[in-house]
């Protein structure tokens, strides 16, 4: 596939820095601007942190595969893990006015991406699809 890359990391938080670097470079290659790159890096980091924490439950023998693909219309990221099935309805950010620890990651993901959807056809583990439309299409 043209303009695409895949990185697979162990479900271990120490590899998140590697993932952020790759995400940043792919976003840069796709032509996103500085503010946009920071947003997508943050969102992918938060989504993978959720996979490590909630789906893989810290089991670093599990893996997370992140696929990047971009074209003239959008910057696309697919995050797949081999962890416990996540209930999409259970993932909700907290009310931003309700100041307490936690519940912000989902907001950062939705800020960066126009489409945030779990592929329910995946039988084992989770597949999260993220799509950011180009500025002119947002």
């Amino acid at each position: 596939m043209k303009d695409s890359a895949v990185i697979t990391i162990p479900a271990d938080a120490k590899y998140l820095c590697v993932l952020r670097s790759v995400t940043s470079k792919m976003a840069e290659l796709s032509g996103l601007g500085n503010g946009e790159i920071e947003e997508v890096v943050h969102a992918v980091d938060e989504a993978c942190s959720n996979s490590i924490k909630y789906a893989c439950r810290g089991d670093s023998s599990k893996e997370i595969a992140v696929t990047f693909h971009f074209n003239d219309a959008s910057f696309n990221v697919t995050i797949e893990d081999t962890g416990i099935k996540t209930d999409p309805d259970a993932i909700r950010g907290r009310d931003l006015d309700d100041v307490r620890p936690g519940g912000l990651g989902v907001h950062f993901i939705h800020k960066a991406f126009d489409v945030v959807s779990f592929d329910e056809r995946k039988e084992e583990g989770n597949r999260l699809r993220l799509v950011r439309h180009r500025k002119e299409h947002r």
Partner: protein
Amino acid sequence: MDISMETVQGKMVITPAGDVDMHSSPALREAILGQTGQKAAALIVDFSSVSYIDSSGIATLVEGLKVMNTYGGRLQLTGMTEDILEIFRFSKLDTIFEICGDMSDALGR
């Protein structure tokens, strides 16, 4: 992530260096809660050597603030990049935390 701590003009200054993410935020949490456990009256977290913070890092700061509020302690944040400040604004936390422009500002207040 490295964390240094020193007392400056009567205030405990915690300086993390590197990215604050799910991997490193437990160390920052330990540093902050170590101080709040001793009921530190004034704590400054200096972000001048931090280029990235995720929601786990923010949760750590919110937890520290909530603990300090229970005994009247004061938590100040300083040295944030514009990217990190934007995260606080988006999260509506810029009005909850005392955010200072730089270290001299934080020490002078």
